[in-house]
């Protein structure tokens, strides 16, 4: 089975990119699909503390670290490799991938490639989508509108939005539902995966003492998010789910 490379990026910080990476890794783990992750917020990382066993912090501008990721796509036991791209570096990262032939390799069928582009509500986000158009053909491109940070997307003019989307092939959109703020904070403070928090675990798998109410909010959020993700062909390919009638792309 072909390996899958998932990129998660945004052209600015604070839109919930790492939250989505965490949610994706959580989803993949719940489907019992082996995965690994690379956190490019070098040197400290932002994803690693939630998934320490499967995440490595790398400097993606360093060729040796690029090789660490891309040269092992076929040989790793993980079926999914997720790269949490540094905020603000999405276009640069895709340009790097393009120059080193990763995008062509995906287009040639060596592996499955998907990009989750986490966007904000301003018109600048639509410009970001337009700028990426030259890179994303041949990959599954998903615009993720993230309500976790309570972004109001009504600023988007739907007609303009549809015009930007129409230029892209294989483009899809998902809405990341809003998670209760206190629940989000507690999961963050605990440094746990969403699943471990729901299962009332503490660090190192010990029993936790988390609020039932907050765990309930996270459980529901994960269930709602699952429904969004399961609409995507990229995800269906990973989980072996039967195709669901896709919502029409914009």
């Amino acid at each position, binding site marked *: 089975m072909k390996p899958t490379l998932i990129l998660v990026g945004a052209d600015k910080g604070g839109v919930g990119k790492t939250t989505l990476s965490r949610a994706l890794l959580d989803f993949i783990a719940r489907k019992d699909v082996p995965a690994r992750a690379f956190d490019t917020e070098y040197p400290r990382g932002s994803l690693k503390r939630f998934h320490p066993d499967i995440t490595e912090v790398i400097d993606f501008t360093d060729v040796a670290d690029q090789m660490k990721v891309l040269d092992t796509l076929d040989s790793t036991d993980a079926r999914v490799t997720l790269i949490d791209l540094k905020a603000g570096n999405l276009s640069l990262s895709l340009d790097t991938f393009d120059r080193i032939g990763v995008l062509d390799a995906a287009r040639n069928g060596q592996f499955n490639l998907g990009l989750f582009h986490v966007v904000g509500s301003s018109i600048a986000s639509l410009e970001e989508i337009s700028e990426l158009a030259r890179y994303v053909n041949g990959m599954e491109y998903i615009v993720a509108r993230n309500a976790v940070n309570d972004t109001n997307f009504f600023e988007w003019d739907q007609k303009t939005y549809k015009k930007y989307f129409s230029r892209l092939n294989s483009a899809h959109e998902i809405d990341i539902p809003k998670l*209760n703020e206190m629940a989000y904070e507690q999961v963050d403070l605990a440094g746990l995966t969403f699943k471990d928090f729901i299962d009332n675990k503490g660090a190192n798998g010990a029993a936790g003492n988390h*609020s*039932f*109410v*907050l*765990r*309930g*909010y996270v459980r529901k959020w994960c269930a709602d998010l699952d429904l969004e993700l399961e609409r995507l062909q990229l995800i269906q390919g990973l989980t072996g789910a039967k195709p669901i009638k896709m919502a029409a792309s914009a």
Partner: protein
Amino acid sequence: MAQGDDATRFHIVCSDQPRNGKTLVARLLCDYLILSRRAPLIFDPATSPGGLRSYFPARASRVDLSTTAGQMALFDRALAQPLHDSVVDLPAHQLNSLADLMRHIGFGQESHTPGVEVVILFVADRSVDSLLAGRKLRGLLRPARFIVVKNEAILLAEFDRLARFLYDGLAKEGQLIVPKLDGAATAAIEDKTFSFRRFAEEEPRGTPDQVTRGIEAFLGRVFRQFEMLGLGVDSRPRAAAGI
């Protein structure tokens, strides 16, 4: 749903309509449980005065269910003290939001809260719409017990055919009939210093005999129904655990 002596009961006294005796039913239940040595946790989500807090100032906790902290103060506390049953006197305007919340977080679902029985005491109001609201609530939450409450001071007339059909459907799992009291007795029990528990345990003082007899008959009838509904059964080793 799990039922039985080992379960912790989470009682919600509610209705889709205001001012139909919910707080009276909640008070009766609280005092009955206290007398049955089930030491209930008492929660009052009302934003206006006159709820359970005014009758149980030392025992009742005010919880603001519009906030996450308030929701935690209710559900997390109830789960953290499994030796105690809980009673919530829910204002009518909070009915839908609480039902949605409970479904959202999975409270009362066996898979998420094993050992917790949700018992709903739904005070039926005058209209068919109220009975339909009760039926909808029961379908939504699927509680361990659903008890429809008929307050004879409110529901004076006989039901029409449709209402009777709906009521009978709701009453299959259990019903509680709250008898009507005369004006003097009603005034006596509405006094904020009046306690059904103290009335049951002590000799009433300063109350006219006729009023006393009226309250005795009222209380006897209600408490017998609680007993028949199995709400005060206590064979668990929790009687020693006080609040």
